[in-house]
């Protein structure tokens, strides 16, 4: 019983990280129809910036804020320099552009930071909490609550605020949105900024547990992309559920079947789900925007 609980704790912790990354994917996709393969780079920028600032003696929370700001700035630059000029490009071009951007950012980080592995101490110490035979790190709770907070915020923002509705309107019909007076360019900038901020925040929160280095972005993006598609692209609920599901599948497979094939199990589940429901768990039908 305590075993199962430990597996669940592990799965939810890891899944919450995937979910946060997937929420970043969702944000950009909703506004622009682009799946941003450079999303993992935001996570790394957040983690590395925080690690370097903390190592320089900057207080943890200030470092965290600055790291999120750094990620946000890169997100806006990514939109302005790489995505906006390529508007209306076919899907495959957008995939190549965002992958190209991720390779570029990796190269840049290798210059700005270094090639070492970094971490800093958890925000609430390192003493594990024990309950019913299972243990959890305080930082894992930060990660889990952080992801839920991001989810709740995005859901509220997109449906309840003027700016959020502007983004949704821009996504569904750019021309019509512009005609009713929505500043579509601003809406796009905002969605990239938010997405990058979410990614960088995920990096800031997870680095004490997962560690970070300049080149882990691809793997993070792959997991986040998988979670996004499992949940159904464009749906915040889908991103959350997809992320948690993949985390749980991995930990339960590692715990009960074979740790060798835990990543394979996640992909098999994705393939099976897509064969049955080609639009993912929470996706809308006919979301094709290519």
């Amino acid at each position, binding site marked *: 019983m305590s075993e199962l609980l430990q597996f669940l704790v592990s799965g939810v912790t*890891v899944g919450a990280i995937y979910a946060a990354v997937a929420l970043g994917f969702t944000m950009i996709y909703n506004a622009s129809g682009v799946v941003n393969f450079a999303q993992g780079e935001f996570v790394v920028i957040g983690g590395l910036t925080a690690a370097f600032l903390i190592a320089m003696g900057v207080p943890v929370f200030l470092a965290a804020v600055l790291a999120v700001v750094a990620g946000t700035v890169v997100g806006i630059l990514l939109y302005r320099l790489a995505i906006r000029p390529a508007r209306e490009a076919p899907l495959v071009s957008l995939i190549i552009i965002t992958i190209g951007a991720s390779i570029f950012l990796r190269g840049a980080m290798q210059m700005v930071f270094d090639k070492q*592995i970094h971490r800093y101490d958890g925000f609430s110490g390192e003493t594990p909490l024990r309950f019913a035979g299972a243990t959890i790190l305080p930082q894992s709770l930060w990660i889990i609550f952080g992801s839920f907070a991001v989810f709740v915020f995005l859901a509220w923002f997109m449906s309840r605020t003027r700016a959020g509705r502007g983004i949704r309107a821009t996504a569904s019909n750019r021309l019509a949105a512009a005609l009713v007076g929505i500043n579509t360019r601003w809406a796009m900038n905002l969605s990239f900024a938010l997405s990058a901020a979410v990614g960088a925040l995920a990096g800031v929160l997870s680095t004490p547990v997962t560690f970070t280095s300049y080149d882990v972005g691809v793997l993070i993006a792959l997991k986040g992309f998988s979670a996004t598609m499992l949940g159904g692209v464009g749906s915040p609920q889908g991103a959350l559920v997809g992320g948690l599901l993949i985390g749980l599948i991995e930990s339960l497979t590692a715990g009960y079947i074979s740790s060798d094939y835990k990543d394979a199990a996640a992909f098999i589940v994705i393939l099976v789900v897509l064969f049955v429901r080609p639009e993912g768990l929470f996706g809308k039908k006919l979301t094709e925007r290519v």
Partner: protein
Amino acid sequence: MTKTKLIAAGVSALALSVASPALAQIKIGASLAVTGPAAFLGDPEAKTLEMLVEEINAQGGINGEEVELVLYDDGADPNKARTFATRLIEEDEVVAVIGGTSTGATMAMVPLFEDYEIPFISLAGAVVIIEPTKEYVFKTPHTDRMACRKIFEDITARGLSKVGLISGTGGFGKSMREQCMSVAEESGVEIVADETYGPNDADMTPQLTNIAGTDGIEAIVNPGFGQGPAVVTRNYDQLGIEVPFYQSHGVASDSFIELAGDAAEGVRLPATPLLIPDQLAEDDPQREPVQSYIAAYEEQYGESPSTFGGYAYDAFHLLVDAIERAGSSDPQAIRDALEETEGHAGVTGVYTFGPDDHLGLDLSSFRMLEIQDGGWVPVEQ
């Protein structure tokens, strides 16, 4: 015919980039994983070589001839490594090559060096590189099989025998896992649990929970390098597991203690003397190279060197020693002199090559260390 023009332009660009003036007298090549999944290993290796070449030229070179290093980044990709090996041999006309950070890159290059008869010193771990012995191929790191033997020796010395393995799925962890399985029986231990994790996994508590729950488990061994072992160590501590915990030589550097923090207390691992420069006996032949390497590297780069950088240090000095003894930079003469190396004290161990031994180290060069109070302490045996 725009296309042909474009191709012609491409080819001439290629030609331009490789035409470098022949200033140096002795050209040594290197193909290392400076970036990519093995950058953690390759980066300090490259830094070490660059530093050593600078150093030796400042001292007047080898046999009075200047040394030039031609270094390529293969990103641990065997495909690229083979191309760069061809380039080093054909275009750069090097007399010897150091490199192959990863086993894959090394093995892809080996046939070329055998073919062109150029001496090659690999920095990768696996046994297959030197078994069977290949005429022109040498290597400086201990094999992963030796690491397993060393760890099992220590485990049995403590009167324990039931071991759980938790291995990284990267090349290093996977290869060492296979070796540990194959030498377990002869070493008198029994592998009772066998789990793995991916190189970027965030949490290994499920695997460790399973190992800890295995009947009669007496020790845990974690083959792997990079961030994985540090995460495993933290999870081991988080779960409050009590049985002795062993890491591999793959994490033998100060950065492991930094990453794993207090959780690393009590962890044991087989390592090179590089980690305990001040605890080496006055008459230890490795004392001098270890201390001078650490001092030079820290001065140059402001960080402490890693075991992997040490492999490059030894490879370079073995080569310099061979060229000096040969009195010539002819590849064949270098190879012959390399094979006659005897009692060469490096930072990894004391090397004695022979016609059937192109590694030249035995178990005694490994030191079993334990992490205590955030530092390395040799285990008395």
